[in-house]
Each structure stands twice: as C-alpha cells, then as structure tokens.
C-alpha cells in the first residue's frame, strides 16, 4: 500500500463527491458520479479488495451511470440546486 497514492485518490474522491452534488447540470453530475465510482474502485483495488472493486467498476461506474443517464434523459436535465 502506498499511502501517497491512497491520499491522492481520497482527495479525488472527495472532490468528485462534492462536485457531483453541486453541479447544476444533472447529466454532468451523473458523469461525475461515475468518475467518483471509478476512483473509488481504484482505491479499493489499492486496498486489496479486488472483487469489490471489480463489482463497483461494473455496477457503480457502469450500469449505475447508464441507469442514471437513462432516467435523466427521460426527465429533466437542469437542476435548481
């Protein structure tokens, strides 16, 4: 485990999380959420949880994002907050 890498990843994750809930464009927010999931899965790989990382990569960053996009494309893209 390399703690510097760890720390950078954590930083990215937090930035992504904050951005995801603050971006007004929902599609953008959803994509950022996908990035968040992806960084998260890197962090977990780095912690040795390969199975969990793999699942998160396919589920969280993959299908989850697709579902969100599908829903957003079905509804409204702009958000007031």
């Amino acid at each position, binding site marked *: 485990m390399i703690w510097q890498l760890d720390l950078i990843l954590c930083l990215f994750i937090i930035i992504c999380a904050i951005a995801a809930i603050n971006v007004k464009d929902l599609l953008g927010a959803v994509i950022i959420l996908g990035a968040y999931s992806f960084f998260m899965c890197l962090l977990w790989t780095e912690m040795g949880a*390969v199975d969990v990382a793999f699942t998160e990569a396919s589920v969280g960053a993959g299908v989850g994002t697709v579902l*969100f996009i599908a829903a957003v494309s079905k509804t409204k893209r702009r958000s007031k907050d």
Partner: protein
Amino acid sequence: MLDYVISKYNFWIYIILMMIGLYAMIGKKNLVKKLIGMNIFQSAIILFYVSIGVKAGATVPILSGHGHGHEAIEVANYINPLPHVLMLTAIVVSIATTGIALASLILIYRKYNTLEEDEILKIRKETGA
C-alpha cells in the same frame, strides 16, 4: 495527534463522504441529487467496510497455489475476505435501490412534470392532494 489522525485517516475520509452523501439526501431539493447523495452515502459505507478488512502486509485473498492446499497457509498474508463478501451484497443492494428509486422518479416526473421537491409540494398543495 498527527500520528493518530494518520493512523485512521481512511475512517475520516469515509465519514466525510458519508456526511456529503447524507447532506445531499436530506438537504438537496432536486430528487436526482438526492439519489446521487444516496449513492455516495452507500459507497462511503462500503469504503468503511473495505477498510475494516485491510491488513498491513497482506495481499488479495486469492490463494496462488490453487486447489492443493497442503502447504500451510499463513493467515497474515491474506486480507480478511469477509468484509468484501458483505460489500458485494451491499453494492448490489445499492444498485437495486437506485433502480427502484429511478423508476419512481419517472413516475413522479410524469405526474408533476418537475423534479424539484419544493415545486412538487406546491403543486400538491394547490391540487389539494
């Protein structure tokens, strides 16, 4: 003090993420934002669990000399697999919840033509429902 912070920093990270997610779930007005918060919240918990399993100096819990198992297995060499197992379940649960929530989101949009909580409340008040 610094040592204390560093020795548990991943717990701090997860708490921060969890707070962000929870805040979005409660405080944000847009329903999609709430769901995004929900996802963040859930993956923060998963991060917490994954951190539980970490062991210093251990590797992923997959044995290399597979199938034979006669050589002694050193427990300290492998990361605790149980939290991973639990979290696989939790991830799937989270995606399932997201699916259901998005479906209800579409129903809501059909009915009110908006996804802002305050506007929906206003419409409901006006129609007296």
